[in-house]
């Protein structure tokens, strides 16, 4: 059986270089453990691999790390490794369906993957990147409210510091429940987005 993270790395490499998953990577998926196969199946279908889910004899539990890695692949399909990601509302609808499909899935899987990828965007987010971030927050909040409300946001609140990138803090500006936005978090967001096109947006949101 192949290591799940090796598989995820190869799939990610495919997406970064060729913008699609190669046939050999699709084949490797078949050698994963049943639980890992289940965690990646909907993502691979979303990415055009035509993966059939395992039959459930593995107990129906998927690992959060695997699900986050699967979400990471789907986000890379939006060119999230570039400054100007591309997407369509149709694509994001399908992506959210795929995110929520594995047993135990939650919107937190997508947000963890998003937050990690946003660490690579050092400067102020481009308009397209900011739009995608906000769109994903609105989509998850309005379509998967129960999952959104049950999410443990403390990890994100604790990471909202000077070390976070402006894109990560733009995400937190819109995604964090207001009760978790203390003075320290608000200051980190304000400083990161100062002198960016999102300064007024941040000030308005934080003042509300």
């Amino acid at each position, binding site marked *: 059986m192949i290591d799940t993270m090796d598989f995820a790395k190869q799939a990610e490499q495919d997406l970064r270089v060729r913008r699609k998953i190669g046939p050999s990577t699709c084949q490797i998926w078949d050698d994963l453990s049943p639980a890992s196969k289940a965690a990646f199946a909907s993502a691979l279908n979303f990415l055009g691999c035509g993966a059939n889910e395992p039959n459930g004899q593995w107990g129906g539990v998927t690992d959060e790390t695997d699900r986050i890695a699967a979400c990471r692949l789907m986000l890379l399909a939006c060119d999230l490794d570039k400054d100007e990601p591309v*997407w369509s509302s*149709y694509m994001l609808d399908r992506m959210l369906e795929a995110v929520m499909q594995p047993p135990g899935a939650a919107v937190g899987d997508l947000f963890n993957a998003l937050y990690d990828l946003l660490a690579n965007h050092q400067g102020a987010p481009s*308009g397209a990147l900011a739009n995608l971030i*906000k769109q994903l927050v*609105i989509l998850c909040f309005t379509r998967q409210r129960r999952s*959104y409300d049950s999410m443990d946001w403390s990890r994100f609140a604790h990471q909202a510091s000077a070390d976070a990138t402006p894109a990560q803090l733009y995400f937190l500006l*819109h995604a964090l429940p207001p009760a978790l936005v203390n003075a320290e978090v608000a200051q980190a967001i304000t400083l990161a987005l100062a002198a960016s096109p999102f300064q007024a947006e941040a000030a*308005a949101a934080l003042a*509300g």
Partner: protein
Amino acid sequence: MDAESLKQLLEHVLFRIERGDANGRAFGTPRNPRVPTLAEFNPRFIEIHAGDLAAKIVKRKHGILPQQAQRIGQLTNDELIRIRVDDPISAVEVANGLSLTGGHHRTHEVSQRVLNGRLAVDAPVRILLHD
């Protein structure tokens, strides 16, 4: 589209609203969970000739996704410019044109077809304007 149809705009279309609430907070987020009202969304239709569309659109939310462009490329001209209540071509008016909020791939395809002569320059494209 008549007033009754405008009232039937789906919730996810209303979330295309650009302005936030009175305090500037984005709708459909933890800081402002509610759906914008129809009055806040302020929908109205305009008609633009297909040949004028490319120049009129001065801002977009995102670029073009090749797979989606391919899917849209298979639509007939009628399907391409037909109003879809569930997913209208939509925009906000800005100083020198329109800032597109929905229908990116369809408007891109319209402009491509005008350029290669597959769609008449005066074909009417209806756009939902909102706040």
